[in-house]
């Protein structure tokens, strides 16, 4: 299936490849070099080592528990919402996406207010006085957020499973339980494992949750942040970063070269509308129950944040007050505009290049395809804050980071301290979303379609623009929306790189969260999540313009016909 590769494609591929090497491989390698080149670091005292391993143990314990819980919950949710028929399903399907526009950080504060020593539920309702800080808190908050991610990934797997195998098992007399355990789940195993690993990576790299509710229980990622901001010690941070990279790379390697290779999907099933009617009543009830419980928690947390923004003193005095929204007037508007610009521009570039790269790698197999694929997906395994450190230590030197070694007499062109670096790191981080969306889509596109176009006499440009581009459009849109909502709330990667003139809204919220004004933090965070929602809606309409118009016209048309 080797295709002719048009020369503009080759040129673009070359540019993308260079980008990958410079802005992904180089920073990651830099962290390692920077870390091990620091012989006088405090880290090399036994205490430093000891501490890092305590934090590693914390990180792993949290990540493993969160991974198991979130994946199981995500699986139950996916089955319930995709394979069962019950009233109110549509509402639940919308609710489960809440975490994607969740106001950042304040979820953790809400948890303290609800389940803390003097929390609304634990203390006022149940009369308990228990500390919310520590592992329990981190796990709860992360499970609430990451289950949605697990659900989203598993749903796409469920929609692709071949239902005819299940039917076959059923006709041969297997019970529902047996079908589930011996047919359905094994068929989905690679996707489930892949989901689990992505959840694992997300949990490992989360630094803000442990920082806010970890108490003395800090993880490697949050400790990295403390080492830089509190202890002024970036070299130790880079060294513990290397320790953090090890399990992440291992998970990444497992995912990439072992699990994703096995695939049981049939090429052309779209089983989204399958409803399982034969499930035993109690099992069905239980699954709907668990799903509803989870979503109630999620909604409860959200509403509680709204409550916090609208009352006098969150956690103590629940008298209605608009004071927090009034104090928003003092908030500068510019960070919000910066956030929006950053999220839109990086989503556009990252998704565009990601999807295009997927197309090139999958259908044209250019030189170094394996390397390009590896580099592009690498950021998924590198925790954001560590990637930020990598950029910091690489791009403080002139000419894209390598000028340290040559060109020293020339006037320095340093990326650090420009607005561009924040855009570049976001594009580098989000490109793998586009790449994965592209791969998933191309599973269903026959490679010969391009050859067919050539054989019918279409030119290179025409083939690309009228045959391939429309095919890949949906992957681009999906990836764009995902990158956009991620970009609006991303902090870890950029926190060390932003400059005064392009500070973003999330950073503002992070500062307010620290400044003893949780009600204000709730208000400003809600504003950001509301803004994200509006723009997601706007982009969705833009992308699906035709469908929406059609749907709007539909009832009208019917009337005419009748």
């Amino acid at each position, binding site marked *: 299936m080797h295709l002719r590769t048009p020369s503009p494609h080759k040129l673009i591929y070359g540019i993308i490849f260079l980008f990958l090497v410079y802005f992904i491989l180089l920073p990651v390698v830099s962290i390692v070099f920077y870390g091990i080149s620091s012989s006088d670091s405090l880290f090399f005292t036994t205490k430093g080592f000891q501490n890092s391993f305590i934090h590693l143990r914390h990180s792993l314990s949290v990540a493993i528990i969160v991974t198991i819980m979130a994946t199981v919950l995500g699986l139950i949710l996916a089955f319930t919402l995709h394979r069962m028929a019950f009233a109110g399903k549509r509402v639940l399907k919308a609710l489960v996406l809440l975490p994607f526009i969740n106001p950042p950080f304040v979820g953790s504060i809400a948890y303290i207010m609800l389940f803390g020593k003097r929390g609304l539920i634990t203390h006022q309702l149940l009369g308990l006085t228990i500390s919310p800080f520590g592992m329990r808190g981190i796990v709860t908050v992360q499970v609430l957020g990451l289950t949605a991610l697990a659900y989203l990934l598993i749903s796409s797997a469920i929609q692709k499973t071949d239902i005819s195998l299940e039917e076959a098992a059923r006709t041969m007399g297997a019970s529902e339980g047996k079908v589930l355990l011996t047919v359905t789940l094994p068929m989905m195993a690679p996707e489930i494992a892949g989901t689990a690993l992505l959840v694992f990576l997300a949990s490992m790299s989360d630094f803000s949750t442990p*920082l806010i509710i970890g108490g003395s229980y800090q993880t490697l990622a949050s400790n990295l942040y403390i080492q830089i901001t509190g202890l002024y010690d970036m070299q130790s941070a880079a060294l513990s970063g290397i320790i953090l990279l090890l399990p992440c790379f291992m998970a990444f390697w497992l995912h990439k070269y072992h699990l994703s290779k096995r695939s049981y999907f049939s090429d052309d099933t779209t089983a989204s509308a399958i409803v399982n009617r034969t499930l035993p009543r109690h099992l069905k009830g239980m699954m709907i129950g668990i799903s509803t419980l989870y979503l109630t928690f999620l909604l409860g947390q959200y509403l509680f944040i709204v409550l916090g923004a609208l009352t006098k003193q969150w956690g103590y005095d629940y008298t209605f007050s608009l004071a927090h929204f009034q104090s928003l007037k003092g908030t500068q508007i510019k960070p919000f505009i910066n956030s929006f610009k950053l999220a839109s521009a990086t989503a556009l570039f990252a998704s565009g290049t990601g999807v295009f790269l997927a197309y090139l790698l999958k259908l044209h197999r250019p030189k170094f395809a394996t390397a390009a694929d590896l580099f592009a997906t690498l950021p998924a395994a590198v925790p954001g804050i560590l990637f930020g450190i990598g950029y910091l230590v690489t791009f403080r030197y002139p000419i894209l980071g390598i000028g340290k070694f040559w060109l020293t007499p020339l006037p320095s062109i340093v990326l650090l301290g420009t*607005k561009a670096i924040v855009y570049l790191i976001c594009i580098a981080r989000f490109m793998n979303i586009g790449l994965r969306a592209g791969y998933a889509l191309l599973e269903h596109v026959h490679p010969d379609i391009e050859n067919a176009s050539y054989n019918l006499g279409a030119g290179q440009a025409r083939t690309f623009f009228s045959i391939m581009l429309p095919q890949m459009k949906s992957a681009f849109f999906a990836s764009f929306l995902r990158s956009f909502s991620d970009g609006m709330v991303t902090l870890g990667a950029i926190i060390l790189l932003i400059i005064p003139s392009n500070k973003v809204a999330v950073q503002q919220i992070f500062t307010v969260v620290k400044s003893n004004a949780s009600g204000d933090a709730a208000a400003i965070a809600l504003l950001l999540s509301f803004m994200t929602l509006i723009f997601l809606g706007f982009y969705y309409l833009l992308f699906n313009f035709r469908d929406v118009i059609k749907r709007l016209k539909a009832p009208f048309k019917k009337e005419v016909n009748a």
Partner: protein
Amino acid sequence: MKRKLLLVVLAISAFLMIACSSSNTPAEQTADSTPANTTEAAQSSSESTAADTSADTTQDTAADTDAGWHSDYYNAEAMKDITLNMYGVTDTIIPVLEQFTADTGIKVENLTMQNGEILQRLINESTAGTPIADIWFTGGADTFISAAQQGLLHAYDAPEGAVLDDIMKDPDGYWYGTSLTLVNWVVNTALIDEYGLKMPETWDDLLQEGLKGEVSMSDPASSGTAYNTISAILQVRGEEEGWAYLDQLIGQVPYFTARGSDPANNVVAGEAIVGINASNGDRELEENNANIKLVYPKDGTGWWPQPVAIVEGTQNLDAAKVFIDWMLSKKGMQTLADVRYAAVARDDISIPDGIVDIKTIQLFPVDFQANAANRESILLEWQSHLPQ
């Protein structure tokens, strides 16, 4: 289909072009290594007109009386397009910066971070040879001292600096204290009543039985508030008695928080009863939270100056000097006192309501240079006193 898609792509790119037109394209930025120019261009025109009009009105009124500030380096015409980049630890000084812009026409963009992050950034930017920040305002004196020693600050012999006490400024002019940061206790009075405890007034009151596990304090290794507190206690009580007291205090604290602002958050949320906190003298926490009272210990408390400094290598040296002159002037200090309710470094300022009178507070005598110099040895000793 094709046309629709093209339309969408065009619409997005047109939109992004508009959105990005106020900033430079990445290529231009890379070529342009002076950060001052970059931010200059980033300023939208609407913003500058707004600043201009407000500048006019205030200057008119100020012209009648005494403007309250003066700088030898000020040149209104040459400086009206300058934007100063500033690092600091709090957003609450934004109104002060706005007043500065109104008075001088010089715009200020601030980025709020933690002390250590600022120091780390200045080191990186100095290594890279591209300083981003022009000025650094607010933070702990120890980080300013450390930065001055590493050659990251620019010495300026400010004329207005003469009126400040010696302890409020660097002898070589690397930094000047603008206001005081005071260590105080954030106390949850609802819980004090509920448990029938004695309202703490002295440091020894923190050791009462009922407060076991209820005192919140940050980790001195990562928080300036806690470090200044313990070093002040050691200086006042002497090594032996000081550590004996700290041993007992450590027993009252369930865990040491990562950031200096956490203890106050914990007390407000009811997670602890007393939190060791730092404030600039304002009463905001009390005013916004009915169950909170701020206490200044009767037997003395830790404090440090809240400095302002010029970053070495700034491209806007004259404008930065104007900022220092303005900040240290009567006008600047009065603004700081009025909008931020801060206990300022000058004593010829009228103190607004809602601010603690610094004269009623017992301050520990503190040696900041020694604080900065002994940091590592004190922290090492501290480690050995923690329960293993």
